[in-house]
């Protein structure tokens, strides 16, 4: 690790650039460590005085912001807030489930809508607080609020006598719209999780809506993959974040969705989806290498090799027999693990050079 130069220009040593891509936490250069470098570059004629001042001002502001956010470790208050949110959500769900038959229709709705609005309101209150720990907890309150709103929509539909599949679709759409709106207000990890969860609910509801007999795994899987691919694209364009969570959930949506579409339910006629799964895996690996994002590589390799194992069992088990298929599958699993280890090491090495 490079030592920061003394205020006097040093003959050797180059400031280590701060990583701006990849999945790891960004460690900003502490402001005092940057300052000697800037002085040195200014002395060497590489920077104008104005540029140097703007860099120092920018880094000072950046360091203050990051210290405020990342420097705070979760404390007792934050833990208690999480506990309170969980207790409210579990309490509302249990109240509704255990007392369903004893509650009047309006009370069934109120038992979910009330706590949902409370959690959304508490989330807004927490956001207004100065302490970062309390502000972080607002995301969890909103996440639970979105889940309860989805449940409320389902109960309202049921009490209104709607068809169950229509109700699920409406509940998923409302939850997705609310999660998106809350993400716009506060683009935090928990809001990305809420958005992904509500889109998953929407995909499942759409799959159930599309088929009278049972959930259509092709529709569910392809919708999940579509939502995931959209999330990946928006993340890489810088429109969706925080990036680690968005990458993780987007890639998981793509690979799990295609696995679901290819191998679950009536998957016998879905050869093109199997090919799409491998193409998506290759694409995510390439994107991971391009963007130095191990998340993409890890999920893509895992999903691709899971798909390969399923592919072997589906198409070659009769010819190979189960033992050989198992043997091949085991080798593929080991290969996947080794590939992951290789890519992780390579990305780490690139990040440190």
């Amino acid at each position, binding site marked *: 690790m490079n030592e920061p130069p003394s205020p006097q220009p040093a003959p050797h040593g180059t400031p280590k650039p701060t990583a701006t891509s990849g999945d790891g936490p960004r460690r900003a250069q502490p402001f005092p460590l940057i300052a000697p470098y800037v002085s040195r570059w200014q002395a060497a004629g590489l920077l104008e005085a104005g540029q140097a001042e703007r860099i120092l001002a920018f880094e000072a502001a950046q360091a203050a912001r990051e210290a405020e956010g990342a420097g705070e470790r979760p404390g007792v208050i934050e833990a208690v807030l999480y506990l309170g949110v969980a207790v409210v959500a579990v309490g509302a769900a249990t*109240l509704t489930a255990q*007392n*369903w*038959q*004893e*509650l*009047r229709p*309006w*009370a069934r709705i*109120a*038992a979910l809508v*009330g*706590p949902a609005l*409370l959690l959304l*309101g*508490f989330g807004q*209150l927490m956001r*207004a607080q100065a302490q970062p720990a309390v502000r972080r907890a607002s995301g969890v309150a909103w996440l639970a609020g979105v889940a309860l709103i989805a449940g409320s929509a389902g109960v309202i539909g049921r009490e209104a006598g709607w068809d169950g599949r229509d109700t699920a679709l409406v509940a998923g759409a409302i939850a997705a719209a609310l999660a998106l709106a809350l993400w716009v207000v506060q683009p935090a990890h928990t809001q990305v999780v809420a958005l992904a969860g509500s889109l998953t609910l929407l995909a499942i509801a759409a799959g159930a809506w599309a088929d009278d007999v049972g959930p259509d795994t092709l529709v569910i899987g392809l919708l999940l993959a579509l939502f995931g691919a959209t999330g990946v694209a928006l993340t890489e364009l810088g429109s969706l974040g925080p990036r680690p969570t968005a990458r993780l959930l987007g890639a998981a949506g793509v690979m799990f969705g295609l696995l679901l579409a290819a191998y679950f339910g009536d998957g016998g006629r879905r050869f093109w989806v199997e090919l799409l799964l491998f193409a998506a895996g290759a694409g995510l690996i390439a994107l991971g290498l391009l963007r130095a994002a191990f998340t993409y590589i890890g999920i893509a390799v895992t999903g691709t090799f899971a798909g390969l194992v399923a592919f072997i069992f589906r198409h070659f088990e009769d010819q190979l027999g189960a033992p050989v298929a198992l043997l091949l599958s085991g080798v593929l699993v080991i290969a996947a693990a080794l590939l992951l280890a290789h890519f992780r090491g390579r990305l780490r090495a690139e990040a440190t050079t």
Partner: protein
Amino acid sequence: MVAAIFAAVAATAVLAALLLGPGRYDPSPPSLQGQPRAEIPGEVLYVDGDGCIVRAAASGATRTPVLCGGPYPSSVSWVNADTIGYANYGGPGIAWTEIDLRTGRQTTSDRLPQRGPPDPVSVRGERAEVDDQGSVYVLAGGERRKVFNFDGSSRLRPSFLTWSPDGDWLLLQYRDQLWIVRRDGSVAGTLAKTGGNPYESSWRIEGAGFLPKLMLGDTRTKP
């Protein structure tokens, strides 16, 4: 900020009060134990949640445990004015035990009582009916009249247990409760919250006999 927190807590308290009060169905008629109705004749036998056989005045005025602590009775019935019987699965087969209420003497045999489904037709020829929403009707002379309006979840609606032996009253089960309703709907009360499943209850009126009917049949053994 502080005002908003207190407002949220207050809103939660209001919500809880609503959910525990008006938001909850309470379809049970008034307790007969608290307000006995002398016009309801006879005595009802039932098994409570502790497995005790209880003898209750149908008016709600008295309630006496007859037998506690033995094997759990799966069925209970009047046999005559001075004798009750109960079935249980203790021992190698189904045992039928009769208790003399005057002496307390118990006699056990392996005769299994045959108890048919509740007869919805009373000795007056009127038919009892519980509709899909849980309301209770009496059909007589081509007329169908509602005698009890059920304000509860239709999935937990009351079920008909038996007519009273004089044909003037209906005995209903709602969850663990026993309800008594007059055939014209003018009186309704909760006889007991048994804590168990009082499906096998029996109503006796002096001079009118008891219902449901009970026939002591062949010897049966537990499969």
